[in-house]
């Protein structure tokens, strides 16, 4: 307990665990509870949309209730990413830009969908045309505004490529560019009602989501390593010590005593 209290990295670890918690809640609520992801079809008729709202009535209200209660977990997550840029040898402007972009993007890019679909689910006896309007509004605001996030990715990319402190590897900088380029592909969702570029199309949603999944997993792993490597200096971040190939029993003892890394106990 005292180890945790005296750990100078505890705030960083809290932010990292908040990020992990948020993404887990996001996946559970959006993919498994409310079925808002993958998004249902944009070409559905009024009747099909009403049926979708009725079928997911409780899940939408409870699921998005959970999101409203926990959405603030994105703030420490974004703060940790901004921290990575503050630790770099680049201007602080990068971190501030990223924070502002992602804080604002969360409104159309996530919360608006939750609010609008909750409004639809709250009174299922509404006029079907009105429910359809809410349905279109929710998914267009969510999927159609994904492009806003691409500027954030480019800001992070630029910071990583210019950095001399080796906070994050250069390949992740380039992966940011790949992620940004697939975010661009989502924008035709405003034009198409069906096909590969509609809001749940093979190209605009499915391929994009695979890239985003790889990108997100990569930055979670890299931010964890960054915290482990953090020395609170302002020069290059030291590398993690290379663990010698030890017999299994020895490695187990090391893991149990918690020595060798900066992970919290």
């Amino acid at each position, binding site marked *: 307990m005292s180890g945790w209290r005296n750990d100078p990295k505890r705030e960083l670890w809290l932010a990292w665990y908040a990020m992990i918690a948020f993404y887990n809640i996001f996946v559970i609520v959006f993919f498994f509870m409310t079925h808002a992801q993958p998004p249902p079809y944009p070409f559905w008729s009024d009747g099909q949309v009403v049926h979708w709202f009725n079928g997911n009535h409780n899940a939408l209200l409870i699921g998005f209730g959970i999101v409203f209660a926990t959405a603030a977990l994105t703030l420490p997550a974004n703060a940790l990413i901004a921290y990575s840029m503050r630790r770099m040898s680049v201007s602080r402007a990068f971190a501030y830009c990223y924070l502002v972009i992602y804080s604002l993007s969360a409104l159309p890019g996530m919360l608006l969908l939750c609010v609008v679909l909750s409004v639809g689910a709250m009174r299922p006896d509404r006029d079907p045309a009105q429910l359809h309007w809410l349905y279109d509004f929710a998914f267009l605001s969510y999927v159609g505004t994904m492009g806003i996030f691409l500027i954030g990715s480019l800001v992070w990319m630029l910071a990583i490529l210019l950095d001399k402190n080796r906070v994050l*590897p250069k*390949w992740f900088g*380039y*992966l940011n560019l790949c992620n940004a*380029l697939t975010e661009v592909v989502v924008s035709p969702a405003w034009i198409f009602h069906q096909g590969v570029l509609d809001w749940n199309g093979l190209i605009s949603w499915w*391929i994009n989501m695979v890239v985003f999944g790889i990108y997100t997993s990569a930055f979670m792993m890299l931010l964890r390593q960054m915290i482990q490597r953090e020395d609170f200096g302002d020069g290059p*971040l*030291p590398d993690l010590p290379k663990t010698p190939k030890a017999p299994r029993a020895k490695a187990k003892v090391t893991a149990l005593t918690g020595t060798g890394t900066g992970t919290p106990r």
Partner: protein
Amino acid sequence: MTGMAPAPQPETDAPKPAGHIPGQPDMWVLVLFEALVFTAYFAVYLFHRSASSELFLRSQADLNPWLGTLDTVLLLTSSMFMLRCVQAARAGAVRTAMTNVCLTAALGVAFLASKITEWILLTRDGHGFTSNEFFLYYFFLTGIHLLHLLIGFITLGVIIYQLRNPKRRSQEIVETCATYWHTVDLLWILIFSLLYVVR
């Protein structure tokens, strides 16, 4: 701080042994990843093409193969000049390298102009982004490629920036940017083959 390895030395641009990967190895992550993403796009295109091959063949006939061939020649030649730029930079012939990178940029601009002209001509003939499934893929693939080309111009700017000052010149960065330019070229060859050539 305890248990940490000593802080690494600042990055240097020391000559690499023969047979090394050109540029930053990290750039190859982007090359590989973009290749995978475009493979997925091509797979989706080919799947839908096989489902309505008659429509695709009919629409494909409305493309101007000579403009497509011209685009390919422009980009392949630009890649040749880029190669000469890298070789000249390696040999320390900065002036030659600068000439070659400028020629690369000029051919890139010519490609851009040719592509925009082709889009205008197609739109005048009534073929838009939403006309049919073939033209959806045509405008999507050529559009996303053009976006890659525009980023390529930034990398050419980085090369010029590097070459202009001997103090900051880094052969590794020059090669990294060249790798990106060649990737744009490679992607175009695949797009050209799929959209214009494959029947």
